[in-house]
């Protein structure tokens, strides 16, 4: 991204073609017309190695998580909202309560609320599959075997642009998620995430 902070739609794009948008940052290549009089040092090698190693961790742990989530009924029991919660009234009430920073009651705190459930389902079943798909759609080797994966997105540069926005959405989710964990009591919540148990009374809820 820093070596070429220009984004396109369609199959191809380069310094000679119009952009969809440009990031207002300097680049690590001096051929890119950024408007800055300097270039940043090249970090493409190790950062790409890290990116693909991390991608494998995401895919392998994600697969395990998805398999166990379905087998144990975790998704159905803990994430799928109840029918009563899926009305506009319930949704607007939950959003309004959220925006007023209302604390959940003791009973509510023991399960995920409606907004959490929808956000987690969206991240697990929309954002992660999309980020993996758009990433693979940029690979010339992968699309040689599965050309439809890039063709339906409108081209290789479209895949890159979509990958950028989906990864931004994931980063935003992580930031908000950590913010909310902090808000709910960082130590007790992280302890509960790691062990699956609540060993101490929920502090500050």
């Amino acid at each position: 991204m820093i070596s070429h902070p220009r984004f396109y739609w369609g199959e191809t794009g380069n310094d000679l073609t119009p952009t969809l948008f440009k990031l207002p940052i300097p680049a690590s290549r001096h051929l890119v017309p950024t408007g800055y009089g300097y270039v940043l040092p090249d970090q493409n090698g190790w950062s790409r190695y890290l990116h693909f190693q991390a991608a494998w961790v995401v895919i392998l742990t994600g697969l395990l998580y998805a398999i166990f989530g379905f087998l144990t009924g975790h998704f159905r029991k803990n994430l799928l909202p109840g029918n009563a919660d899926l009305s506009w009234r319930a949704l607007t009430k939950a959003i309004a309560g959220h925006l007023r920073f209302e604390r959940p009651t003791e009973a509510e705190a023991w399960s995920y609320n409606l907004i959490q459930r929808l956000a987690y389902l969206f991240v697990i079943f929309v954002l992660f599959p999309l980020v993996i798909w758009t990433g693979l759609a940029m690979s010339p080797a992968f699309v040689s075997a599965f050309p439809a994966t890039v063709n339906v997105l409108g081209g290789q540069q479209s895949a890159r642009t979509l990958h950028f926005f989906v990864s931004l959405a994931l980063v935003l989710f992580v930031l908000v998620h950590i913010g909310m964990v902090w808000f709910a009591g960082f130590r007790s919540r992280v302890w509960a995430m790691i062990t699956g148990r609540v060993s101490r009374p929920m502090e500050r809820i």
Partner: protein
Amino acid sequence: MSKISRRKLITTGLTAAAGVAGLGVAAGLAQKYGLIPPDHSGIWGLGETLTYASQRLLTRHSLAREFPRSQISKPPFPNEIEPPTEEFKRLQAGRFADWRLSVNGMVARPATFSIDQLKSYPSHSQITMLQCEEGWSYIAEWIGVPLSHVLNVVGVLPQARYVAYFSIEPDTWESIDMADALHPQTFLTYGMNGGELPVAHGGPLRLRLPRQVGYKSVKFITHLTVTDSMKGFGKGLGSAAPEFGYAWYAGI
């Protein structure tokens, strides 16, 4: 209590042993079927090996996407090249009549080819995308002779596993496995978009590999070596790219 913990200990031990044995068998099979890249060592080796092995299994024979002539980028984007060496200037002044491609290593008949000799073989063309690891791309028509044709002329020995290719530019060399070397879209390219291959795009001779990103399509090719191991080349990582921190396999 002690009974449970002993049972736990035994199951954990057996699972760990099975895991280690499983990994050992997987590594042995991967080695046997050529699924381990030359740059498999170091902290990034696991990710690189998984990527190379899975893509090699999925894409051994698949063809890179080809595009209609109407999608050719006008003009193709010339990336920057190093200032030409004195030797290159001399060859360019002679319109590359003295440019030579030498082929040796694990071949039955080592040989040297001029550009005209390469042009005398059946000419092929492909309209494929060149995409750079930086993110930009263009589509062009590439004209040349499939590398497999030249490899057949020199007669590759059965134990060959890699083809290393060298540029006239110092310290610029790469290698590919035999699946890529014999792939029908891997070209020794001498033409582009109906004309000669411009120097800005690697003329007079560029190795074109459309299923990997641009840095594997090395410009100004003068030498090929067929080998069964990349250990003796440079730092033994497969190509110059890993010595600069870039991956050897770049199907991405």
